[in-house]
């Protein structure tokens, strides 16, 4: 009978954690849309949205309300089932990644020790990869179901871009995994936290650079926003979408940005680690709160970086994109992998 003994409190605890993290991700994504417009404005010498509420802080709610109030249009030549599935899949895939990110260390509440990571699975990075590659289905299905040549072209571009850059991303991560020796994200953070061990960016600068470029491509952010190229493809795969289905697509992009920032912070910048601070000397709850804040600060810096790049450089041409992916990023990642392998082998002798 012990097989059926489920720790119901654990289930409840995880459910609450899931709810909190999903709502936090949505909230952060909501305000990322606002921050994007604000950053765009400031980089272009203008104030950005400042009318709705103090400093324009209610702008994302106004935007959301506008999207919900819009008429829901499903083109009659489209495949209705897939047309609805597309944005849902994009959103789900974007949210699923946050399950394995360690948002902080353990907290002690009501006499229980709660880990601030939903699932510390031993194949953490592989899981992230799997879900990220699922995300491209949202684009592909949306583009295909719209029955529109621009959308289809955008979907094809999106798919080929995702495949090309996933390769380099994977190769750059292999080098990182050689130094860490584990796929578990929680473990990777603990290693970076350990005294005498620096953040992984110090050991893998080239790997980080490649990962960063590929993360831009995976999030379909400028300069890799070819699938939604406004000026040549008319917004690409979400051209036929309106109302909240469009909102889901736009929103999933911002969630992706948030999650990939969190993953980058976790893998290369010590996750919830605060430099020059010994967390073990603090009260565990205090340490956990400081850790969450530290991770969020890193994430915000990354998100700002994403926006800064977007409002600086123009979009790549399709052949430039492919050249960069296959002829530059993959050889660089391979070289990085070889060098890392050699160094690791040498140090272990």
């Amino acid at each position, binding site marked *: 009978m012990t097989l059926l003994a489920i720790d119901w409190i654990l289930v409840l605890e995880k459910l609450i954690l899931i709810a909190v993290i999903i709502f936090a991700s949505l909230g952060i994504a909501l305000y990322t849309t606002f921050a994007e417009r604000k950053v765009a404005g*400031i*980089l*272009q*010498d*203008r*104030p950005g949205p*400042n009318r709705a509420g103090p400093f324009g802080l209610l702008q994302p709610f106004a935007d959301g309300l506008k999207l919900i109030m819009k008429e829901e249009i499903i083109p009659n030549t489209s495949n209705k089932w897939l047309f609805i599935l597309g944005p849902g899949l994009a959103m789900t895939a974007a949210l699923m990644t946050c399950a394995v990110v360690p948002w902080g260390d353990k907290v002690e509440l009501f006499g229980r020790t709660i880990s601030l990571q939903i699932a510390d699975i031993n194949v953490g990075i592989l899981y992230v990869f799997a879900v990220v590659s699922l995300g491209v289905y949202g684009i592909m299905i949306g583009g295909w179901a719209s029955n529109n040549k621009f959308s289809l072209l955008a979907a094809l571009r999106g798919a080929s871009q995702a495949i090309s850059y996933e390769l380099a991303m994977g190769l750059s991560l292999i080098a990182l995994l050689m130094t860490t020796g584990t796929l578990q994200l929680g473990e990777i953070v603990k290693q970076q936290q350990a005294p005498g061990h620096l953040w992984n960016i110090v050991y893998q600068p080239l790997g980080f*650079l490649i990962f960063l470029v590929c993360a831009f491509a995976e999030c379909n952010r400028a300069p890799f926003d070819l699938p939604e190229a406004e000026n040549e493809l008319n917004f690409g795969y979400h051209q036929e979408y309106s109302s909240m289905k469009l909102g889901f697509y736009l929103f999933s992009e911002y969630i992706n940005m948030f999650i990939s920032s969190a993953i980058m912070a976790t893998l290369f910048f010590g996750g919830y680690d605060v430099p020059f601070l010994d967390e073990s000397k603090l009260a565990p709850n205090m340490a956990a709160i400081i850790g969450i804040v530290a991770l969020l600060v890193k994430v915000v810096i990354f998100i700002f970086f994403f926006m*800064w*790049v977007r*409002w*600086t*450089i123009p979009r790549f041409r399709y052949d430039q994109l492919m*050249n*960069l992916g296959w002829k*530059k*990023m993959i050889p*660089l990642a391979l070289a990085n992998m070889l060098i890392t392998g050699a160094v690791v082998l040498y140090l272990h002798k």
Partner: protein
Amino acid sequence: MQALTNRAKSVDRKPMTFLESIYLWNIFKGMLITFRHIFKKQPTIHYPEQKRPFSPVFRGLHVLNRDEEGRERCTACGLCAVACPAEAITMEAAERVPGEENLYREEKYAARYEINMLRCIFCGLCEEACPKDAIYLSETFAPANFTRTGFIYGKTDLLIPNPKTEAADLAKAKGEL
């Protein structure tokens, strides 16, 4: 070939080196430029709170003038309507009856005076044509409206406040308060 200007540069068609072709250095340079813009002064004028002053010769919405005793100056001669290139002005004349001397300056006055602000091109020819100094172009411009009829301004919209009875309103309209 001789260059047409001294600023002409020949295009460099050398193939990119490997470092150039991963774009990072040039992207970095571009990002420094945008970063500098964060600290630049914004030229934005926050419109409803801040307004840019108009020049004194700005031609905005029309006003119909009164004299010092508060009598309407317009005699409905129709010269402004004739001068108007956009045919925006319509009027109907009426005769002053005894007892209205405090309202109208001369024996004839405009019973109806309408300007279609959608037709008006704000050229100011009506102002120049008026022999009685009755019509002037002010420094405000037409506010937005939901209907076309809202843009047809009648006498109540155009006449300035009476300097005798509504002196405070007049001062406010002139921006003196």
